[in-house]
Every structure is written in C-alpha cells, then in structure tokens.
C-alpha cells in the first residue's frame, strides 16, 4: 500500500508563468527509504512542501498516509503523520530555548506532560545534544542547529520522516550516526523515510532513488540502476558515487571488476576478488 501517492502534480510560484513542477507521478510504499536527487532548482523542496501541505496543491492529486491533500485537508492530523526537516534550521525553530523547541510538537498534540519531558530528552540525546536544553537556538553552532531541528521531528515520532538536506552541516560522525539511525528507525519501526540529498554516497541506505531534473521526475528505481547509469546522472547534472566512478574509469582502461560498486566497501571487495 502506498503511503505517499502523487498523480500528475504540477506547480508554479507565479500563477502559471513559470512552472517548476511538471506532471509528477510517484508512489512511495510504507517502509521505503527514498533518496531524492536532483540539481539545484530542480524542484525537490517544492515537491516536498506539498507532502505536508506547506504549499497549496495546484494541479494533480496527492495522498499522504491516506489523507487526501486539498483545501479541506486536516493539516493538523497530516503533520502528526509526516514530519519534515527543512534545509535551513533557523526557519524551523518555533521556540527560543532548545528544549521548548523540541517539546513544541508533542505539546501541541496533547502528549501528557511527563511523557513530553521524556520524549524531549530522548530526542536530544539521540542527536547528541543533551546538555543544551536551556540554550537559545540562535546561539548554537551551525551543526548544532541542524541537530536540534532533527530532534524536533524525532520527538514527534511521525510515521513518515522527510529530510530536506538535513545532514548538510553535520560533521562526518554526526552524518554517519544519523544515517545509521534512519536505517534503524526504518528497520525497527517501519518508518517511511524520504531524504533529499546532494550526496549520492548517502543513497546506499535507500531502497529507491528518485531523480529530478528541471521540475520533472526523470526516473525512479533501484539505487543500483540509477547510480550505475553514468550517462543518466551526467545528463541530470549529477555524478556517480566516487567508488562507482573508479570502477567506470578502470573499465575504460580495460580493467573489469566483477560488479558495479556503489559503496567504498563494495569497490574494495571487488578489487580484492580480482587481485
């Protein structure tokens, strides 16, 4: 059963003069981890802002967790089911102190007081930010802000989590931990994940990749089919993962590995097998 369904979605910010989304149709199944790739300005954030009804649907139809998105959508109920972390955490913060910001979501949904404290603590420690409860969000470092914004959505515990470049300011350890945690949330709690990223390397945790170009969904499929397709990626302004690039370059030089690797580990394994 699809948890997110889009049919022929189109969008324009200026009353139809320039369209930035064209005829987008897609299905995301419950339990999917979907990576959304695409050049700057290809429409990724615009698409995602439709999922939680931040933008008004102009063309086509969308259902999210069985909720039809239209003028009568119960946005309240919708946003309990789907949590979105946006590109810039400053736009996301609603309260000035860290703990109030993280507690804001659960409070609004009438979670009992004592549970809120517990959820807030858990979410903050999940992102390595315990000890910062009283700090004002605007005094955090860039990466700390991003961590707190993530905690805000984790505390809500929605069925669908959407990350719009939510790891862009994380250090390598933080990024790795978050990706591991996303995978864990998905495997253990069957959460559906949508992550927009410019790092093709992060697609290794995904079971589906969607590639956008100039407002259109160019291709959706298995990571291997998309990331291994050099021509497709180059024509969309992207690059294969470095491990894949090495494989492709070796091939051009007449050295053929036994499989097309997506990750560093896979590349190392296939080099060892050939050696």
């Amino acid at each position: 059963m699809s948890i997110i369904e889009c049919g022929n979605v189109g969008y324009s910010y200026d009353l139809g003069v320039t369209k930035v989304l064209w005829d987008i149709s897609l299905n995301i199944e419950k339990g999917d981890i979907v990576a959304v790739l695409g050049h700057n300005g290809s429409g990724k954030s615009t698409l995602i802002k439709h999922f939680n009804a931040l933008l008004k649907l102009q063309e086509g139809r969308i259902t999210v967790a069985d909720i039809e998105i239209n003028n009568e959508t119960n946005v309240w109920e919708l946003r309990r089911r789907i949590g979105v972390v946006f590109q810039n955490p400053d736009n996301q913060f609603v309260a000035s102190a860290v703990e109030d910001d993280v507690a804001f979501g659960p409070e609004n949904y009438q979670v009992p007081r004592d549970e809120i404290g517990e959820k807030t603590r858990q979410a903050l420690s999940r992102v390595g930010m315990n000890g910062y409860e009283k700090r004002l969000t605007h005094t955090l470092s860039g990466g700390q802000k991003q961590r707190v914004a993530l905690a805000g959505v984790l505390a809500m515990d929605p069925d669908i989590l959407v990350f719009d470049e939510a790891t862009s300011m994380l250090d390598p350890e933080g990024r790795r931990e978050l990706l591991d945690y996303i995978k864990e949330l998905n495997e253990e709690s069957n959460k559906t994940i949508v992550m927009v990223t410019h790092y093709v390397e992060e697609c290794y945790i995904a079971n589906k990749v969607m590639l956008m170009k100039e407002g259109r969904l160019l291709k959706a499929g298995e990571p291997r089919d998309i990331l291994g397709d050099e021509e497709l990626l180059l024509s969309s302004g992207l690059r294969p993962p470095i491990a894949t690039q090495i494989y492709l370059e070796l091939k051009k030089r007449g050295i053929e590995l036994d499989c097309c690797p997506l990750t560093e580990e896979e590349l190392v394994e296939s080099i060892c097998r050939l050696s």
Partner: protein
Amino acid sequence: MSIELKNITHIYEPGTPFEAAALNNVSLEIREGEKIGLMGRTGCGKSTLIQIMAGLIKPLNGNVIIDGIDIDEEGYDRTGLRQKLGIVFQYPEVQLFETTAYKDVAFGLKYSDLTPEEKDENIRWAFEITGFDPDKVGSKSPLELSGGEKRRLAIAGVLAVRPKYLILDEPIAGLDPVAREKFLKLLRDLNEEGMTIIMISHNADAIAGFADRTIVMSNGRIEIEGDTKTVFMDRPKADEAGISVSTAGRIAGMLRDRGIDVSEDVMSESELLKELCVHFNNDNRSEDQT
C-alpha cells in the same frame, strides 16, 4: 601581507549560566596567496574563529592583525576592512536581506570608490561566475530562490567586492555536484589571480581538492595543522579529531588493510586510479611471466 591571530581566547556570554568557551589560546598566520582548509567537529569553534578574523566578534583576549595592523587599534579603517576581507556565512539566509537579488549582490559595493558603471560590471561578473544570468535573476527576490541558489547568491554578493581575503563557511553545503565542482574550480582560479582563501568544510573531498594547508580544530584549539596531504595521511590523528579523510584516501587505506599495495599518500581519485592501474598491470605481467 597576512592575517595573524595572536593568542585568541573567546568565551560566549561569560559570567552567565550560558557561558561557553569557544576558543582557547589560538594563534595562526595566514599568508597572502594561501588556500586554507579549516575542519573539525560540530561546535569546535570554526565559525567563531573566522568571525573573529573578520572583526565581527571581538575576542575576549588576543589580537587580530591584518596586513600588519591590529584591527582593534583606535581609528582602524573598518570600512576598508569590509572591502578587503569578504565572508560568506554558514547559512546564506543570514546575508540575503534586500528586496532583489541584484541589490543583494550590490550591497557590499555601497561604500566602494568604483564608478556606477564599474560597480555594475563587478555585479554582473559576480552573477555570471556563480552560474546566474543577471538579467533573469537580478529582479527576483532572494526569498524566491532554491536552497542552492541562495547559497550561490550569497557567494556572488561577497565576490562582487573582489576581496583580497575570502573566508567561506561551509560554502558547498547545498550545492549540487556540478555546482560544487565549478565552485571549487572558481576558487582555484581566483586564488591563481591572487585571492587568499580560507574555506571551512566537513567535506574532505572538497578540502583535498582545494587546500594547500589544512587546519583541524578540536575543542577550541588547533589540533592538527600542516599541508593537506600530511594531515590526511595521519589517520589516527584525523580520526581522533573527528574529520574524515578524502574518499580516495579512505579506499586506499582499506585496500592496504587487505594487503593490496597502494601508496600511503593517495588523496585524490586520479592518484588512486593510477595506483590501481599499476597494481593490476603488475599482476598481469607477473602472470605472463609464470
């Protein structure tokens, strides 16, 4: 000509419950013409350091000396400093506040001595080298841009001034792979023309492809410093400071662990590729001989 930091210590909101030590006795010299990479864990003090360097935060202790003059000296020409030292902040929204993209890029030139024509020329150049058509984007509101476009616009605004020193805080975050490549190439070109550039990034591949010298901070101190290759080759130290090394360097390390002979100092993809070609051709040759 250089930027010199002498014994910089900084504590945010000292004496309050929010007191936070950010920098602890940091000294550093950046010479004209250098390409510097600045790395380190979240919260280690990178953004604080560069804001102090740019005279935007006054440190609790220590001196900032730019081209031989202490910027805290009485009568120091702050307006002049803004023209010679440009800074791109970690979140571009911070520096986009005008009603149109054109005005935003023009902002830094307000106090410059250039004629209006020269200013316009600089502005158009800045739009173009950051991948924009000024005639198309100039009249747009910065709020109407995508995340990566905002980033590029913020960069354009700083480049329009053609600063002598360029400081960039995570400039490639949000850029797509092609924009990233073009931007790093642009930085190398600007450096060739004499611009001194300091770039903060968590992305080791970007640092590897850009920086001559890399500084790694940890807990408000400089932990590692040296030419980029040497910094990345010392894996235990890099791990301890929480930075990753370039992807190619990491793959080379994994191969060495598996007994494959690749050189210690592989940092870029092309170096790795070369090593692998040698490895496989040698293999073939030894098979031929047997």
